[in-house]
């Protein structure tokens, strides 16, 4: 099955039809997706600001991460579920949309950046956990994360102006 074929199948599911045809279904799911930004990127960006040594500098990096993780993980779960639901309803238009593609690439890169940080950079965290200004590798991870999430948000917003 091709990607377009899969997208067309998704659009034919009852969930997709419900979203497209109910009076408020689309609006409610989009609202959840936008509100979910607060919980997901809204909290994660503070981890990134700490990694950058720009804010919350008196707190240990691991303490900021540990306390915010449940919130941004819950947030990203909300984003994933609402995002997949929206995609299901408009899969072929989304797939063809250049901003959707940019958004997905940025999302994947953000995930790769997080993985690289956890697997490589975080191993030596004992040496910089307390540092108000962490080493370059850590700051780069924070900055990369911020730039990628800004791209995701901007690309996502552009989608709604170019898809319908």
């Amino acid at each position: 099955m091709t990607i377009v074929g899969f997208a067309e199948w998704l659009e034919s599911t009852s969930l997709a039809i419900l979203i497209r045809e109910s009076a408020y279904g689309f609006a409610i799911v989009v609202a959840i997706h936008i509100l979910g930004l607060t919980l997901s990127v809204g909290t994660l960006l503070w981890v990134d600001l700490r990694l950058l040594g720009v804010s919350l500098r008196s707190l240990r990096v691991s303490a900021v991460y540990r306390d915010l993780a449940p919130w941004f993980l819950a947030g990203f779960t909300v984003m994933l579920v609402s995002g997949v639901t929206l995609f299901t309803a408009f899969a072929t238009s989304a797939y063809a949309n250049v901003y959707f593609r940019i958004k997905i690439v940025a999302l994947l890169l953000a995930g790769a950046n997080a993985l690289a940080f956890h697997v490589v950079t975080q191993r030596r965290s004992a040496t910089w956990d307390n540092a108000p200004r962490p080493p370059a590798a850590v700051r780069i991870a924070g900055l990369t994360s911020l730039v990628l999430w800004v791209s995701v948000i901007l690309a996502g917003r552009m989608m709604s102006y170019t898809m319908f």
Partner: protein
Amino acid sequence: MMTQLLSVIGALFTWIENTSIARNVAESAMLTASLSGIHLLGFTLVTGGALIANLRLLGVLLTQQSIPDVTLPAGRGILLGLAISLLSGALLFSGRAMEVSANGTFQIKMLLLVAAAVFHFSVASRVSADAQRARATAAVGLSLWIGLATAACAFILLE
């Protein structure tokens, strides 16, 4: 008196709509989309900062740190986010000032914006001790910010 005030405001909004900046925004979908994206970035900064500050007041996270150690940086984030959202929002507003200002949902959004911001910077950021008062403050603060975010979504999705 009220009708005079409303007609002055109406004249002002009509004048704003006719400025070249406003016309550029109104006529360019790309410009509107970009400003809307920037507005959403500001929203993320504001509500994320507000969430963290109020969760600290509730005693839910970063409890090893004093309240001001969390609420002060979060407050700076809120201010930066407000600056970004207000600037992008003003530009977006300018293109459709008359229509948008008459929209009930938009009016509620503005009221909640003022209420949430004033409450945060006059009450929430002055709390320094963990106690009943901190939790009550957080409950009010969170309600106002969530109300604002919901009104904002209702405005763009249901207009």
